[in-house]
């Protein structure tokens, strides 16, 4: 899951980005409005966290441009303005959620997770595919009632594939949702991580969960 944080106050930006990264998200962060818009329109984020008062271009303007651009990315607004009219305005401009400063980081993370799930039309925090079970809130995975320990990247890859279960997901898409903008890794690392993941979740007595479609990408799900 990849998240963009546009917030001009450095302590909040740094802490939120750090918290999100530690929660397994790939995070891009910026304090400038123009730059924020460039990030938001140039990449496919699962969630954008947007402060309203920004230098350069304010949050609502970014939101408006994103929507005008046809982006349906989920947007969470964080702001010090708490009047009902401000919230209504934010939501009317196309925001999906609203959080007033100061907020608890736990709550922000929970809301971001919820928005990320909704991005793939998933409402339950518990994903089940065959005998694979993923608890997204606690980031834990079970196979046949046996817990599997995954690294952050492995989990992120599995969660993304699970969110889009049954679909064919290209390497580029996976890479875009797993890695930050500043990451130097190229999309080949996806193959490496798919390999790691397969070793951990596949069992010899049943068909593999992750299928490779040559030239197209990967797909997670029970094959027909």
């Amino acid at each position: 899951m990849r998240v963009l944080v546009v917030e001009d106050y450095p302590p909040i930006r740094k802490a939120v980005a750090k918290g999100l990264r530690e929660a397994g998200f790939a995070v891009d962060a910026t304090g400038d409005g123009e730059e924020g818009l460039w990030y938001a329109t140039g990449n496919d984020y699962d969630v954008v966290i947007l402060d309203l008062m920004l230098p350069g271009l304010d949050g609502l303007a970014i939101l408006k441009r994103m929507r005008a651009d046809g982006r349906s990315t989920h947007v969470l607004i964080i702001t010090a303005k708490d009047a009902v009219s401000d919230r209504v305005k934010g939501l009317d401009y196309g925001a999906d959620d609203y959080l007033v400063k100061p907020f608890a980081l736990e709550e922000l993370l929970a809301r971001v997770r919820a928005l990320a799930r909704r991005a793939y039309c998933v409402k339950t925090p518990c994903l089940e595919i065959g005998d694979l079970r993923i608890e997204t809130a606690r980031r834990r995975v079970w196979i046949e009632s046996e817990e599997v320990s995954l690294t952050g990247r492995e989990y992120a890859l599995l969660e993304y594939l699970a969110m889009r279960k049954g679909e064919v997901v290209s390497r580029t898409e996976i890479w875009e949702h797993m890695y930050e903008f500043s990451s130097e890794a190229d999309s080949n690392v996806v193959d490496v991580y798919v390999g790691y993941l397969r070793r951990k979740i596949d069992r010899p007595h049943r068909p593999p969960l992750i299928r490779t479609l040559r030239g197209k990408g990967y797909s997670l799900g029970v094959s027909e």
Partner: protein
Amino acid sequence: MMISIRTRLLLWMMCGMALLLIVFAVVVYEVLSRSLLDGFDEVLLASARTISASVEKDDAGIKFEMDERQAPEFYRTIKPDYFQLWSEDGTILARSPGLANSGMEQFSGLPDVPVFRAVRLPDGRAGRAVGLVFTPKADEDAKTVVTSKQVSLVVARETDPLDSTGHFIRWLLVAATAGTLVLALLAGSVAVRQGLRPLDALAARIAAVRQDDLSARILAERMPAELIPVIGRLNDLLRRLDDAFRRERAFTADAAHELRTPLAGLLCTLEVTLSQPRTGDDYREATTECLEVTQRMQAVVESLLALARYESGQTALHPEALDVRELIETAWRPLDDKARSRGIEFDPRLPANLKCTADRDVAQMIVGALLANAAEYTNDGGRIEISGIDSAKSMELTITNTGCSLGEEDVEHVFDRFWRGDRSRTHTGIHCGLGLALAQRSASALGGSISACIADERFSVRLILPV
């Protein structure tokens, strides 16, 4: 003790009225009793004249002959009048029958001028007497003219009827005065009640002003002219209260709003740090960050409080002559290192001995805020220029910094509290218009002013302070 206007008005009115009525009654009584006494004296004198007419002198001496019918008042047995006649040598010539064995005191004035006085009659009654000295007329039959001997006469009569009339008049006046006062009290209280009715109406209108809506004003329509100024003052007071409450609310809102962002930063940083075990360096970094945020919050709170105090006039000022160069040097010292590291050139060009008269702390704070603002927004490698003009009445200081990215249309906003127009904001992230807003309010508290202008990417603030 609380005395209502109604009671006070009534009291004063009644006191005045009573005084007037008493004076009036006393005068009336005096005039009436005087005229009654005059009438009494006249009758008494007439009696005396009758007696004196009955005294004649002939060769044998002085002769007194009076018929009872001529003056029956001296001859009745019950409450008679009295007279007594003395010859020049003091022998009693005649006396009224009522006097029998007792006598009356002799008194008189000049010949033929009657003298009146109050006496006690021989039988103990209160009375009034007239004393008269006269020369008896000569008998027509007398041959020789006897030497003109004079006779003195005292006639006395009881004054009971006079006294009772006086009494009656006295009581009449007292009763009339008291009655008038009672009626006046009744009429007065009705009049006062009616007259003060607008006050009740005013009280009702004041009561209608709700605590939560001080923008309401008391209506002056259909109010008597005397109350219009009162209503005006009350409305002034309401307006001032309203302003004060508005400022208070604005302050609270601003403070809450402005503190939310750093507070959120503090919360997030602490939460992230505590969410899992970390290295000592991580903790040190987080603690340093929290400290910086807290210091900034403290600065914001202090600025807000100072601004609130200037606006409500709570801060007492102590103006003194200040050296402007010294103010600038003191204000620049803490900014110097950072400005140097960013390659900012600081160029104060002040006329020698530039002075102003102001409260030292406030003036230092203003100059500090202006310089901090300039240092904050000057571009790296930019320049801050300061010039000063000394005139008879005021000192004018202009601080100009390069690298201003604001448009000319933004000038009117730079003094708004919390206005964030700085598109180049990179350093503190929290720096807000509070510094300039505070400086402007403070300058006006010192009797000066601050204005700003933007031209050619240069931002200038002009501070004017009294000399």
